[in-house]
């Protein structure tokens, strides 16, 4: 039986990827960001997951406005790196796990989550920056990755409750896969940030801290946060945090926080990171 053993949340700020790719990780501005992930890298290197499911959003890379799936799952064997306007990031292509991905689709559709199946897709910084933060610069990523893309670009995005319940359905799907795989699920994006308009630069440390606290203390309170509250309190792009709730929903009710990191600023954004382990392992 496959099992989800842990969840990782991390912001996916493009400037963090650019800093890494351009050799600026040691500069005073960026050093604290990468140092904040050192122990997390050790943690995941020790855990050696067999598969990572990465919940992220596409930023007008694979999906333009032609097709806007609310939830999509990558079932391909490989996902090339997107050119987002300045050339593709110099990171390895992402290898998929078509067998488990296809299994998840069939299970969650029967659980009333109608994922869009994507068999050809480029992946952008939303997916690759968290991989860089957790795995550094390997020649190949250490395990297959199943991308789950969420529309958080065109409003309304799916509700926190819907995301949480999708996480539950993913957990059930993974647990009914008949191979022994240890799976880590990533929720990416956030935390508070606004990239656009005269209100750009909004950061809400209190909200973010409460959100991090409640991932263990009271996840049900997070599920109830309304869209308007995200927009008003965390900026127009802070609503990406609904993707963390897919990760949280895929974990057990009882989890233990093993790592937390929060840093302002990373470009325009409050960078947040947490690792949660299921207590039954």
């Amino acid at each position, binding site marked *: 039986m496959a099992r989800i053993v842990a969840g990782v949340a991390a912001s996916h700020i493009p400037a963090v990827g650019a800093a890494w790719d351009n050799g600026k990780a040691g500069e005073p501005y960026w050093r604290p960001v990468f140092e904040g992930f050192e122990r997390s890298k050790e943690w995941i290197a020790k855990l050696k997951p067999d598969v990572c499911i990465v919940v992220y959003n596409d930023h007008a890379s694979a999906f333009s406005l032609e097709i806007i799936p609310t939830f999509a799952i990558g079932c391909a064997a490989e996902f090339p790196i997107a050119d987002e306007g300045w050339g593709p990031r110099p990171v390895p292509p992402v290898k998929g796990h078509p067998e488990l991905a296809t299994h998840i689709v069939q299970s969650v559709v029967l659980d009333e989550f109608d994922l869009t199946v994507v068999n050809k897709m480029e992946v952008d910084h939303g997916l690759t920056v968290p991989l860089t933060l957790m795995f550094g610069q390997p020649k190949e990523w250490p395990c297959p990755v199943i991308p789950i893309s969420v529309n958080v670009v065109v409003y309304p995005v799916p509700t926190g409750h819907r995301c949480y319940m999708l996480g539950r359905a993913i957990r059930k799907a993974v647990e009914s896969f008949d191979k022994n795989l240890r799976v880590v699920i990533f929720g990416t994006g956030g935390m508070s940030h606004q990239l656009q308009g*005269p209100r750009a630069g909004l950061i809400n440390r209190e909200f973010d801290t409460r959100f991090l606290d409640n991932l263990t203390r009271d996840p049900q309170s997070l599920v109830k946060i309304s869209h308007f509250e995200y927009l008003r309190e965390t900026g127009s792009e802070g609503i990406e945090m609904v993707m963390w709730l897919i990760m949280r929903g895929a974990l057990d009710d009882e989890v233990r926080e093993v790592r937390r990191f929060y840093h302002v600023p990373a470009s325009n954004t409050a960078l947040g990171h947490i690792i949660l382990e299921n207590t039954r392992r």
Partner: protein
Amino acid sequence: MSLPKEYDDLPGTVVFDFDRARQGYHLNMFCMSLMKPENRAAFKANERAYLDKWPMTEEQKQSVLKRDWNGMLALGGNIYFTSKIAATDGLSFQQIAAIMTGSTQEQYAQMMLKGGRPVAGNRSKSEWKNRG
């Protein structure tokens, strides 16, 4: 009938909903084309001619030519799409964010280093009424 949009009260913010996505469809699809190096080169070589290949409104085209980043958003542009123009220009996300807020790069970077724009005083248009 339309759905209530209480987010229209957020100051300095354009929430990119499906109505705006419809309004800005061609503007954003033009931006999307800049993901290809040959298209970036063609756009840089003659911006007007390149824009004329897209069924955008004249107002939308002018906002692009003038690099009126807030104007593009008001006309249905989305930041993840318009940022591809910025990338073509060699500008970072933080640089266009500074421009959209009307601050200098230095002022904006300092604000972020000091913890960012606080949420207090920035929740409702009524709180921005007395700003200069």
